[in-house]
């Protein structure tokens, strides 16, 4: 239970730090050409699993932690 609380607190601190950085390190819209480049791999409209994630989720014991949708893997386990 204590470990759980420490992890939750660490996550909250990281989130607060990131949000705080957002307030003081604002990057203007005109300075975001590099961030919008396709090789930065920002997510597209679909929150379904990518095919690589689909493979890992059928071969490893710890799915979750990334966007994913749906059951039924259409896979050979």
């Amino acid at each position, binding site marked *: 239970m204590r470990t759980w609380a420490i*992890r939750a607190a660490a*996550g909250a601190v*990281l*989130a607060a730090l*990131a*949000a705080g*950085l*957002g*307030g003081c*390190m*604002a*990057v*203007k*819209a005109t*300075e*975001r*050409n*590099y*961030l919008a*480049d*396709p*090789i*930065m*791999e*920002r997510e*597209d*409209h*679909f*929150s*379904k699993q990518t*095919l*690589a994630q689909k*493979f*890992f989720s059928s*071969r*490893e*014991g*710890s*799915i*979750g*932690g*990334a*966007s994913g*949708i*749906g*059951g*039924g893997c*259409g*896979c*050979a*386990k």
Partner: protein
Amino acid sequence: MSGRDGFVRRAALLLLPVATVTAISPLFAGDGEMGFTNYYFTDSGANKVVTTSFNLARKLLEQTTLLLDIELDHVTVPPITAVTGASRPQRDKSQPFEKSRGQVILGMEQGIGQNLTLSASFYRSQEVDYISSSAVGTASLDMFRKNTTLTLRGQYNADKVGKILESGDVYNQNKFVYTGAADLTQVLSPTTVLDLAYDVVRLKGLLSDPYLQVSVIDSTGGTVLVDELHPDNRTRHAGTARLSQFIPSIRASLIGSYRYYWDTWSVKSHTAELKLNKYITSDLVFSVDYRYYTQTGSWFYQPDYIGSGYTESLYRTVDYKLTPFSSNNFGLSLSYTLRALGAGGGDFEFLENSSIELTYFRYFNTLDFSADIVQFAIKFSI
């Protein structure tokens, strides 16, 4: 099905969507994105999967986008032998087991003002021994002049897990999945983005594989085969941090991520991944990727199950996903933008922001399992 029929079916599954997408793409000309992905998988256990996926994001109004995704899989599992513990029916076990799966996701994304986006999707997946239905809701809020994005997601799944019996009938049992997820994306500089994510997944119902059987040594010293038995509930947690860095001097991006996972079955895992994307020319991108994964086993996994209790109510498993192991995955990818074809205008103008991508993965783990995955994707901006 003969080998030739199987080949023809797989070839049709691969080629038909390409032809369809190419034919209909001018009809959707406007504001949106359309993609087509093909995926071929084979592993050291002689399993084969061919997947074809089509997706469309089409702007209907200024802030309203329609989302559609269709996916078809064809799976071939080899005959059961003494050395395989494949997840497949015992029926006709000397023959390969083949099945198809269809999946549809239909959704709507709605912008509200400048900074809030809401979306809702419905999901349906069907195969002969598995049916899944799901509803997903997502809210995404941009803050601090769009330098910070907070995304919250909730999802409910109601699945029917089937088992094909010797008679050919299918026996179904229920599985329910509840998911909550939060994702915080932070722009740190004109070239750097940090992404932090956490999700929790609660599962209830049939959580074991209905086909897998455990060999139990009973009190007489004899061996008995019994179905797997797992607890009927499980809670999974995962936290992920990802840093994406653009490197202007070499026109490349470096993306590193780390993920920690833990659950109520005592499985814990660490995943680290590093990917480099590099422009070779202004239209050609080369990517190389390495992923390392390691996990512990579940509290009820044992190499041997001895005692008559394991033929009754004691939990038992032969699922290797609940045993300790590590894996390595190497990926190579080439992506080519069709800018030159679209630059001439006319009928091919829609190709200007389109791309094709070829990816190869080599996966191997400490359980002597390996797999090769080839993926081919076409993405159209329409």
